[in-house]
């Protein structure tokens, strides 16, 4: 990629690195060097063909009006450990005590001043690996500039989920957070993430999983509209590891969620799913890259988007099966429900396979609401807007079904339904 020349991209590149201890300074410098080599994403980049990076790379975060509506509490009934960030700044008062059996939780800001830390081997490592074959400069920028985040080392079975809550209070906030999660052999953790975070949010999570580790990740973005987010989730799976991530997105003027998964151990499984809905200048981009580099790996990508009033949905999903990754079972589906003719869904599904004994399938569709089903609902007395909502819930169901935990799945569905209802006032 060409060196950055555009004036607007100069500022983030020239930003001085935050101060810190030996280990993090080394990681930040390496990331800064990667970024300098790659340059910031440009509109002409193939990987950014469908999503304009300008507002993500501009020196200042675009102004974002705060959401005025009431946001229903989510996961309120779940016993969880809450960690709260307000515009990217840790809120100790609102957060729970960072103590959980079989889990070590630390803040990046606290340990960054140390000269040595366990996260040294992880921080920026999966991000760096994820730069090949497709560069992800905004993730490198994150590694170089992040001053806070949560470092989680799971040694056994976490007794309750960790819930990271992102509160947005400033119309000009520009937040960068970097989380690292290490799961030891057989360890289990559920991570919940909710909230709008900031006017502009750049977040990276690196998840390194040892043998037979299980990681469940549930995330809710929205329903505020005036926000921009670029997120990267990097995961590396050892033998028999199980990785599941699901994201529900409601509204958002620009959201790009990248998920990069490396299956390095045999018999491991990775499920990446998302359900998104928005209208008007809603722009939602799911970019996924799953690499199979081991035997009998299983992966699923299930993405559904509901688009109205000229909204845009993007899906770039790839399954790469490396030589020798025999008996891989890869599945990918991306679908859009277009509520009108002005909305668009841009999909680029890709399979790249170098092993001869694999089962991989992919599909991508976009279509309008099924009029017969709508008529059926209306014939029972359900007014069109509510019937349409039921059809939306129906459409998103396949993606929501990817959530393994029934209780959490019901929370997500309930939350979504309340949100739908409130739209009608």
């Amino acid at each position, binding site marked *: 990629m060409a060196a950055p020349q555009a004036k607007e991209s100069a500022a983030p590149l020239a930003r001085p690195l935050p101060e810190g201890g030996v280990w993090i300074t080394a990681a930040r410098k390496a990331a800064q060097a990667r970024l300098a080599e790659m340059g910031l994403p440009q509109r002409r980049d193939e990987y950014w063909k469908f999503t304009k990076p300008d507002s993500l790379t501009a020196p200042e975060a675009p102004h974002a009006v705060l959401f005025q509506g009431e946001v229903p509490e989510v996961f309120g009934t779940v016993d969880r450990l809450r960690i709260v960030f307000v515009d990217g700044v840790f809120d100790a008062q609102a957060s729970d005590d960072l103590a959980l059996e079989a889990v070590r939780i630390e803040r990046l800001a606290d340990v960054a001043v140390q000269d040595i830390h366990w996260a040294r081997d992880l921080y920026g490592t999966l991000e760096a690996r994820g730069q090949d074959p497709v560069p992800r400069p905004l993730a490198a920028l994150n590694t170089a500039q992040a001053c806070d985040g949560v470092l989680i080392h799971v040694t056994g079975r976490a007794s309750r989920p960790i819930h990271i809550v992102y509160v947005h209070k400033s119309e000009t906030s520009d937040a960068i957070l970097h989380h690292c999660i290490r799961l030891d052999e057989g360890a289990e953790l559920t991570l919940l993430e909710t909230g709008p975070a900031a006017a502009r949010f750049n977040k990276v999570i690196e998840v390194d999983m040892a043998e037979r580790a299980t990681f469940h990740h549930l995330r809710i973005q929205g329903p505020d509209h005036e926000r921009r987010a670029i997120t990267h989730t990097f995961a590396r799976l050892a033998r028999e590891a199980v990785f599941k991530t699901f994201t529900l997105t409601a509204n958002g003027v620009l959201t790009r969620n990248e998920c990069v998964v490396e299956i390095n151990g045999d018999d491991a499984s990775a499920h990446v799913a998302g359900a998104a809905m928005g209208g008007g200048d809603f722009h939602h981009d799911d970019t996924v890259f799953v690499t199979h580099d081991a035997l009998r790996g299983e992966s699923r990508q299930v993405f559904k988007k509901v688009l109205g009033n000229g909204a845009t949905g993007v899906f770039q999903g790839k399954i790469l099966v490396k030589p020798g990754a025999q008996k891989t079972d890869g599945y990918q589906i991306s679908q859009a429900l277009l509520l009108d003719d002005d909305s668009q869904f841009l999909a680029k599904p890709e399979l790249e396979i170098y092993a001869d004994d694999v089962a991989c399938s992919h599909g991508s569709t976009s279509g309008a609401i*099924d*009029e*017969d*089903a709508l*008529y*059926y*609902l*209306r*014939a*029972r*007395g*359900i*007014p*069109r807007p*509510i*019937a349409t909502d*039921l*059809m939306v*819930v*129906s*459409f*998103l*169901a*396949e993606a*929501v*079904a990817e959530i393994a935990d029934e209780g959490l799945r019901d929370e997500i569905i309930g939350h979504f339904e309340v949100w739908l209802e409130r739209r009608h006032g």
Partner: protein
Amino acid sequence: MLEIKNLHVDLEEEDKAILKGVNLTVEAGKVHAIMGPNGSGKSTLSYVLSGRGGYTVTEGSATLDGENLLEMEPEERAAAGLFLAFQYPVEIPGVGNMTFLRTAVNAQRKARGEKEISAADFLKLVREKAKALKIDADMLKRPVNVGFSGGEKKRNEILQMAMLEPRMCILDETDSGLDVDAMRLVADGVNALRDEGRGFLVITHYQRLLDHIVPDVVHIMSDGRIIRTGGPELALEVEKNGYADILTEVV
């Protein structure tokens, strides 16, 4: 209660006349049956009355208790008391049968200015009605009609009818695809709803359903018109001799 006068209907896509002057009145408390060969316009009549798109009314009227049905949205017709039991109930994955039922009941109540039913009362009511139709808890929990057998789908239609308590019920070939036992269950469900204030229009190919749901009046429909009207004996005549005789007679 239901009054159809000189109803002419075209199929929009093909610009083809399907109904060519239907006249029919169903009084409260009565069961009317419409029989007729394939393509005579029976299902079209049920779709036009319930507000399905794709049809143009070119002449005539249809009213329910004096209100013009043809000017209402499908949901308004339902709230006014019209119910169509579908020949082919639609599958809606991801939406629970209970959610669907409760949404429908409450939407109709809201449209009529009544209070919404509480979750507890609804549950009690639906369990009671479902039991009579041999619909178990699992079927209530499953997504609407998904993975239901033909008989289950039809019983589910009758359950919806029982929950919504419409004034005017139209059953479109509810007997198709049912075995004898399932037909009896469905018929029992319908008979349980028969009362002074409620009218029924039962559309069927065969006389056998009318053994279970005994009609007051039987109409024979052919080529978009009702060509003969009589008592239950008319259905027996069709069963015995087929439609050919009646059709020849009229021509």
